[in-house]
């Protein structure tokens, strides 16, 4: 059973396009996250949702818009893609208030050409 899944795993697209990455977790967690890992492997949080409510919103261009239809899903939509958006995007989930760790999805490698 896949705890946190992301689709697609690889995404190649041209500058200026709009794309979405989907994330689903079946762990019953109430909090989900999006992280960006750049080419130097630095992992930085972008957004966090708790029960469909945005609770962390780091300094991310407003071209990035997370959407949480329910607490098991957190999708990331990116408008007007730029070269600098090329990275690996990780979805994660956890139970708020728990000492448990965050569970990560397999990552989506986005390449903008």
């Amino acid at each position, binding site marked *: 059973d896949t705890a946190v899944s992301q689709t697609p795993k690889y995404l190649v697209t041209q500058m200026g396009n709009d794309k979405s990455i989907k994330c689903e977790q079946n762990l019953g967690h109430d909090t989900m*996250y999006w992280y960006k890992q750049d080419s130097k*492997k630095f*992992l930085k949080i972008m957004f*966090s949702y708790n029960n469909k409510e945005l609770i962390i919103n780091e300094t991310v261009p407003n071209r990035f818009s997370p959407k949480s239809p329910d607490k098991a899903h957190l999708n990331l939509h990116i408008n007007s893609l730029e070269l600098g958006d090329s990275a690996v995007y990780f979805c994660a989930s956890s139970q*708020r*208030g728990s000492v448990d760790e*965050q569970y*990560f999805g397999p990552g989506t*490698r986005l390449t903008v050409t």
Partner: protein
Amino acid sequence: AQTVTQSQPEMSVQEAETVTLSCTYDTSENNYYLFWYKQPPSRQMILVIRQEAYKQQNATENRFSVNFQKAAKSFSLKISDSQLGDTAMYFCAFMKQSNDMRFGAGTRLTVKP
């Protein structure tokens, strides 16, 4: 803001030997959690070990153990009897009780046969 510093960008160790990865953090919080994650070439983020700040006893998981020094804000990871499969990026992470997690820049560990 919390910061996590991993001062060793790269390290190597001979198979079967012991290696220690360093991590320091800065926070004004008293209750928090610390983690070490491993990211092998498959890019999956895998939890190695976690430590609750209120626990004085150092966490251990088989060949992995930590040296947690709360006053010094230090959280190093010791890998004993290193195996080839331990080759990976290792990330130290700090998490507040709100589940806001911040990562260090990572240490690339290579285990040599």
